């Protein structure tokens, strides 16, 4: 059981990190980014190349992933989403646009990085055993880094000027722009941040799970589950949703080894949303 709990925490923390970016974009622009999983994959491949291929230190690779993805995020906003959303505020426009970009990234990754599952050498190796619970050090590192990034993100949003501006914008773009927030510029920053978060999540997981071009969609679906559970747009919701999904998944695999886990999760989710359409944190009571 201890093992199940550890697995749950490990999965949950990284899920939370993945969900943060999606929820950020959603809160800023009301865009449901279908390409989030693909951004994650892209981040993984950058680390694969820098750390696995060029043999540079892992933290350099992590930085490279973060910067590359931030750039991709900027480009997304400048060349695609801004143009489409200026013309149409309908949700389906941005949704289909993001579905298109998801497909584009996936096929580009397939063309450039190939079809194989890729991995890199472990950053730290070795396994702790605590009363029958196996805790690989690599996984501890992932938990640590995820936690660090989540905290850093929260602090950024709380205590820095750009962070506060983003929050103001999420609350009400019009008021924010009246208050002197350059919303066009901050929208780009938002995309950069969101893509960066996805990329870093991909990057820190490469040494453990590896990465392949086809992972994106499933990651996106999982992220949707998280933010529906937690409440879309709420940072606390993304974290809660991520942890909840990680834990439920881990418990599910323990008690239902036959593959019913996700069926149960989906049915549970439908029932949950019937009762609480706004998710856990969607409403502050």
């Amino acid at each position, binding site marked *: 059981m201890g093992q*199940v709990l550890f697995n749950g925490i490990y999965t949950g923390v990284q899920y939370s990190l993945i969900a943060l970016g999606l929820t950020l974009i959603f809160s800023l622009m009301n865009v449901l980014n279908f390409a989030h999983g693909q951004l994650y994959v892209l981040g993984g491949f950058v680390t694969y190349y820098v750390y696995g291929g060029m043999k540079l230190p892992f933290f350099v690779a992590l930085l490279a992933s973060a910067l590359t993805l931030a750039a991709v995020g900027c480009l997304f906003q400048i060349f695609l989403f801004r143009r489409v959303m200026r013309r149409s505020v309908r949700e389906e426009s941005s949704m289909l646009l993001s579905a298109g970009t998801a497909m584009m990234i996936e096929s580009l990754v397939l063309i450039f990085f190939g*079809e194989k599952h890729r991995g890199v050498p472990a950053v730290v190796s070795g396994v702790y055993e605590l009363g029958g619970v196996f805790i690989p050090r690599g996984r501890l590192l992932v938990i640590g880094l995820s936690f660090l990034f989540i905290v850093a993100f929260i602090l950024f949003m709380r205590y820095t000027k750009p962070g506060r501006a983003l929050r103001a914008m999420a609350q009400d773009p019009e008021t924010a722009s009246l208050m002197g927030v350059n919303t066009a510029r901050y929208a780009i920053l938002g995309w950069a941040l969101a893509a960066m978060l996805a990329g870093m999540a991909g990057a820190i997981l490469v040494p453990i799970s590896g990465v*392949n071009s086809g992972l994106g969609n499933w*990651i996106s679906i999982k992220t949707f589950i998280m933010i529906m559970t937690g409440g879309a747009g709420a940072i606390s919701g993304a974290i809660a949703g991520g942890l909840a999904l990680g834990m439920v998944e881990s418990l599910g*695999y323990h008690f239902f080894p036959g593959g019913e886990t996700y069926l149960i999760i989906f049915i549970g989710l439908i029932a949950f949303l019937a009762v609480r359409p706004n998710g856990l944190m969607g409403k502050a009571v």
Partner: protein
Amino acid sequence: MKRIFALLLVIMCVFSGVAAASAAEKVLKIGVLGVMSGPAASWGLVNRYCAEAAAEIINEKGGFEIGGEKYKIQIVAIDDRNDPKVAVSGAERLIYEEKIHYIIGPNIDPTSMAIVPVIEKGGAISIPYAFSKKLFTAPASNAILGMIASYQAGPVIYRYLMDNKGIKTIAFVARNDSESLNQRDEGVEAARKLELEILADKDTYEPGTTDFFPVMSGVVAKKPDLLVLAGAAPSDTPLLIKTARELGFRGILSTETAQDARVIAELAGDAADGFISVGGASTPEIRSAQMEEFMKRYEKVAGEWNDEAGTKVYALEIILNTLKQAGPEAIEDVSKFKAAMDTFSMPNPYLKDGRPLHYIGTPYFLQKRQISVPMVVSVYEGGDFKTLFVGSVE
């Protein structure tokens, strides 16, 4: 309404206009139908690269001779995205549009089964890399198993490990898709026959999983002597191995499908030492000069070598050689091809010992619907596969 028309008519024209660009020299088209995108992309791509590499070698030598005439070999590849309905339309396309009668692939049970009615009706032969017995047993008669099925390799490996390593207990982990689950069920049955104690036969993981800790925790805790990764995709295998080892698993790990040593080295490293899998003719101990040449060409076509290709190299070779034996009419008429299958035999060009390559499978399918590729059981060690033993289905 006119807009619809304009659109429909434009499409119609383009659609019917894309027809054939005719060829001056004799061309023999061979189809490759398989998954070439998504998580399992490597399965279909390996088929395609194999066919393309082999065809290049043949074409450089002026073509392949059938009935006194040289044919250039042209490979037409279609991605079925592991989706049965795409596979069906792909097969129809190959058969009716490209007029192809010999198709390599598809890669999994659902797609392979889906195209059975199409190939039977359209008069085409397929060489699926899927194991379902229904594909190869009457009334189906146009599919030929291109590799060793899991239910053929499984018992041989288990037996070997019982005799040599004294294993007594076994556990299975499968990917939650029909292919893998079938393989698991057949493996379980084989293990039961061998009177191994089965400790776990229910655990599965979703396709696309990258964290195998949850699923492995439960299985490893049961401490089996042998842990079988049923139908593991090349991308899953190294992670499954690594996870098992991290969780303190000390037994033997094996799978019955072909794997890629380089991916294993990248993702699992030394943790994978001792991992047993079924490979092709590519291990250095047994491969022939022609295999070496093929490997070089494959690297040129695909970018890098993939051990899976060792088992998939046979399809094109055996199609062409059977055609040669059956005569040029067989190019259009697969019944001639099927008639020739009974007696066809050639020395295996990819193995040093040149053992015969022919059609087998009667004990399993009641008809000869399998290529007698060697069952090369290999073990992973220090970054590469080493041949453990070479078995045979017969």
